[in-house]
């Protein structure tokens, strides 16, 4: 049996039917990772023995006739930003190297309860800041389709491992496109749920009003399965969605997935097809819209007039929240601390040198401990975000930046409310181009930010949005189609995406490395 090419749902069926053991299934993935990940770098840490151990326990429970969860024996990779008490959580930062969280994030706890085999921890941009996974303090991740290219980011490891057949499922997080953009670049399905759908408890915070965890998978059915496991109200997260009145049952997003949407109205946004969109992406997305027409959907032109401000709005709000959230890394409570003796020596020398003059500019010892610990342990992109946020929130600039952006955020959200009166789903490009070469944005942070053109709006407005494969460039690189829905309408979004997937074969295409045998 070709275990690695089975979908998660097929793996589950094979496990339930007794056609394969969880141990054999896990071993096949572990061997594939061992054979191929040196060239991809998707995992920051992976412990094959531990994974096999989890699998044998599931097999024993199954043999004993216990009732098992929805993912019993299925391997799942987790982005290294969700706390797992069984090991380290580093956020790909020197700041948290060696950090062992004292509790499980709710998402990890849900995966464990569902019987998933947690196969490893995937690489990311440091603290999820970036769109290429090159901002990891430990290693870059390469795109499985062409290892000279970036997998996208910040969930680059999460997308690459699913694309390369190292795991059928993985968990990513999306603050401005960090699930959808790497999903598009790696040719997989990635879902950012409605803000609040998935608990943020134990998700190391980047921007709290935007962060949301979600599934990456090789097709919409698998993504729906994983979303069903991790969704739900959590009393530990005050921003998690409450169940709608009279409906306490956990939502099963797989239940009606194969049922096409009747009278579907697809919204197409004029502003999505303007300047900056690569011609090959443009034609692939237009072809996808034609597929929807051929399925009987009505195509409705809509306008999101404030979407041109979305990236500017996002790059005020996200860094502002980040600078506030990251103030907890102070060299005292956890994480990295500078060499205190050396620091005191330098500070003494500075004070002596200034003894005759003005010493008011020299830090008190504790402040220096904060500043030096942070400066030694944060990478350049994290420092840039802290600086932008501290500036946007500072006296004299708050009104012009943070407050202005918070007003524009309402206008962006209101645009969607008006648009969804005329259509059921909005369809467009996920990213303006296919995967860029590694290193392309090393000296151009603004250029990297502009890759988020189509994705940040969903975070600002709290909407569910997903990417699924819809084509390839002439060079054979995947292109992603973004599907967006109103808040809480993940089921509609997934069914709409499945309608397209069912009549095309783009999701079935895998990079050659996925077939490589160890």
């Amino acid at each position, binding site marked *: 049996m070709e275990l690695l090419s089975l979908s998660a749902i097929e793996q589950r069926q094979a496990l339930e039917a007794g056609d394969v053991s969880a141990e054999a299934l896990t071993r096949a993935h572990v061997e594939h990772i061992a054979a191929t990940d040196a060239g991809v770098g998707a995992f920051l840490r992976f412990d094959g023995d531990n994974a096999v151990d989890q699998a044998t326990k599931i097999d024993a429970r199954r043999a004993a006739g216990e009732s098992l969860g929805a993912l019993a024996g299925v391997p799942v990779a987790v982005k290294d930003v969700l706390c797992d008490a069984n090991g380290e959580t580093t956020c790909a930062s020197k700041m948290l190297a060696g950090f*062992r*969280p*004292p509790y499980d994030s709710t998402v990890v706890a849900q995966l464990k309860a569902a019987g998933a085999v947690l196969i490893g921890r995937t690489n990311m941009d440091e603290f999820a800041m970036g769109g290429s996974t090159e901002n990891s303090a430990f290693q870059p991740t390469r795109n499985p389709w062409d290892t000279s290219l970036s997998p996208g980011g910040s969930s680059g490891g999460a997308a690459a491992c699913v694309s390369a057949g190292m795991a059928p499922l993985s968990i990513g997080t999306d603050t401005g496109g960090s699930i959808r953009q790497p999903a598009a670049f790696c040719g997989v399905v990635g879902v950012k749920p409605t*803000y*609040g759908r998935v608990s943020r408890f134990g998700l190391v915070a980047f921007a709290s*009003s*935007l962060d949301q965890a979600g599934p990456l998978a090789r097709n919409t059915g698998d993504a729906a399965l994983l979303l069903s496991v991790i969704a739900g109200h959590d009393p530990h997260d005050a*921003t998690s*969605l*409450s169940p709608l009145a009279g409906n306490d049952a956990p939502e099963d997003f797989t239940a009606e997935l194969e049922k096409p949407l009747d009278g579907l109205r697809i919204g197409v946004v004029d502003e999505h097809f303007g300047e900056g969109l690569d011609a090959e992406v443009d034609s692939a997305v237009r072809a996808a819209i034609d597929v929807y027409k051929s399925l009987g959907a009505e195509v409705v032109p809509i306008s999101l007039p*404030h979407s*041109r*401000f979305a*990236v*500017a709005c996002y*790059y*005020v709000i996200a860094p502002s929240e980040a*600078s506030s959230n990251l*103030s907890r890394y102070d*060299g*005292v*409570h*956890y*994480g990295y*601390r500078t060499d*205190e003796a050396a620091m005191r020596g330098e500070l003494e020398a500075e004070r002596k040198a200034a003894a005759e003059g003005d010493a008011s500019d020299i830090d*008190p*010892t*504790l402040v220096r*401990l*904060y*500043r*030096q610990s*942070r*400066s030694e342990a944060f990478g350049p992109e994290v*420092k*840039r975000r*802290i*600086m932008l*946020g*501290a*500036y946007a929130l*500072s006296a004299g600039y708050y009104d012009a*930046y943070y*407050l*202005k952006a*918070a*007003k*524009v*955020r*309402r*206008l962006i*959200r209101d645009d969607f409310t008006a648009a969804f009166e005329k259509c059921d789903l909005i369809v467009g490009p996920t990213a303006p181009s296919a995967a860029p070469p590694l290193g392309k944005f090393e000296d151009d*942070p*603004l250029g990297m*930010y502009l890759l988020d053109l189509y994705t940040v709006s969903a*975070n*600002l407005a*709290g909407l569910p949005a997903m990417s699924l494969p819809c084509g390839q460039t002439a060079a054979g690189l995947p292109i992603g189609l973004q599907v967006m829905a109103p*808040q809480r309408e993940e089921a509609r979004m997934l069914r709409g995406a499945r309608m397209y997937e069912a009549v095309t074969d783009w999701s079935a295409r895998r990079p050659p490395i996925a077939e490589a045998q160890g």
Partner: protein
Amino acid sequence: MAISRDDVEKVAKLGRLMLTGEELERMTGEMQRILAYVDQLSQAETDGVEPIAHPADVHTVLRDDQVSESLARDQALATAPRHSGEGYLVPAVLGD
């Protein structure tokens, strides 16, 4: 008005960061370019628009005031770079 190197140095203090001369130079240029892009927000007509800090209309949720388990002290301290077993250790603050 473009952000100056002096402004960047001040912001680094607010953000509890220390930047070397070279980093300051580079950060100033990068922030100037990013802020020039962000400045297009000023073109958006926002008179009378209420700001939102959150995508959902959040209301304060009340729950029963019940005692429940929380993280034990030794577990919380275990992650600290320096601690006494009772609290976090920092350089002396008084008399500094």
